[in-house]
């Protein structure tokens, strides 16, 4: 019992048409190039955008159904959503941001400790670094004990080192949260590192072939350059990705 999604929406240049599921305790990465419709999918899931045809169910709740004319508004879906950036409330301290919609204060303290931002709990968002802001945003989303966690390219605006650190934090967290996690990214490396399942989306459609081609091409290019996939990889990371490719349970 997890999240089941069927979405159809006419976008400017193509039709978005995807179907997928994500079980509790698993992380599904929606991967694809810019403009593929990834963010539209996650926004529809959150209830921030309406599609032409939809059926979204979470456990036994129907969140959206064109057939039954159901559209549960974003505020009633009980989700945690981590945006790319700019979503912390600038007038509130880190602590108050995390506690903004929290159900209990103890959880807020635990999260601040877990994500190592307790020392900046009284700072305003404009006084902390990008990495700290995103950690705070993740804590904010988790503080209300969401039914589903949605991550919309949360690390894309960060430097490589911070990105890596945060990826590891999310990976560790994944095993503790028994909820479906949907992670949108254009970074295949990130998807392979974090995800249990991968949904490659190109022009609004699931394109498994595209992802395999991309990975193979990247590996070839990497070999020619005497490096791993992408710039700046080290051997450890390359090995990890090779392993991920071999053991990845499903590329939908």
């Amino acid at each position: 019992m997890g999240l089941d999604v069927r979405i159809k929406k006419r976008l400017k240049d193509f039709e978005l048409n995807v179907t997928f599921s994500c079980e509790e305790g698993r992380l599904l990465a929606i991967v694809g190039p810019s403009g593929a419709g990834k963010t539209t999918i996650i926004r529809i899931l959150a209830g921030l955008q309406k599609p032409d045809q939809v059926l979204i169910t979470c456990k036994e709740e129907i969140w959206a159904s064109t057939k039954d004319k159901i559209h549960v508004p974003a505020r009633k879906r009980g989700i945690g959503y981590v945006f790319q950036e700019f979503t912390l409330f600038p007038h509130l301290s880190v602590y108050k941001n995390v506690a903004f919609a929290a159900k209990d204060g103890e959880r807020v303290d635990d999260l601040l400790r877990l994500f190592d931002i307790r020392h900046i709990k009284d700072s305003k968002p404009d006084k902390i670094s990008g990495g700290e802001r995103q950690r705070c945003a993740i804590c904010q989303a988790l503080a209300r004990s969401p039914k589903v966690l949605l991550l919309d390219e949360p690390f894309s605006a960060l430097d490589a080192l911070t990105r890596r650190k945060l990826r590891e934090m999310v990976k560790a967290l994944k095993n503790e949260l028994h909820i479906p996690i949907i992670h949108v990214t254009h970074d295949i490396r990130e998807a392979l590192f974090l995800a249990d399942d991968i949904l490659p989306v190109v022009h609004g459609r699931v394109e498994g072939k595209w992802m395999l081609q991309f990975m193979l091409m990247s590996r070839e290019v990497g070999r020619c350059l005497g490096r791993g996939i992408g710039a700046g990889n080290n051997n450890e990371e390359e090995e990890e990705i090779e392993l991920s490719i071999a053991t990845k349970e499903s590329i939908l």
Partner: protein
Amino acid sequence: MDLVALYLSIKLAVVSTIVLIIIAAPLSYSLVFHRIPGRSFVEALINLPIVLPPTVLGFYLLVVMGPKGGIGSAWEGVFGSPLLFTFTGIVIASIIYSLPFAVAPMKAAFARIEPRLVENAQVLGLSPVAIFFRVILPNSLAGLAASAILVFLHTIGEFGVILMVGGSIPGKTKVASIAIYEAVEALRYQDAWLMSITLVPVCFVFLLMVNRLTPEVRHGA
């Protein structure tokens, strides 16, 4: 110097400002963040007092607030007294007259708020009303203050509309601008001078405050 008229001007400005902020804040919020059918029509209606001559607006208000007008007769039916030539009457008139001056800075302040903040508040479970009080208002305090000061100053300077709707009843509807006009008409220039000179520094200081509260956009050196 007519101190009662000065007091009445300030009282009118304070009451109108408070009422207008309460009305204009949710109105501006809806105009910026919600899909309103006929938005252009609503905005044009709000801005009408800017382009209409005050006497024209005053004339129409005189008609609708009179005993045979819609608002005037309804008022009399409920409260048993007429609306025209009363302090309440000039408060209503000045609210309508100053509405665009309250809405414009608020809309600008609300529009500067990152839309994702509002979306984040939605997914965090907040209702539109809670978003307004917990996210929008705390992040637009400067715009709200600018709006309040502009309305206050605009009301202090009102003349035509007030004269049409309120006349010039001492202690009731005779505000400073009307008192100055009457002093000039009666060749009491010293009174006119004193009242005018009192208003100039007050208005200037308030305008300086508006400038400080409004983000500066400057191109070039």
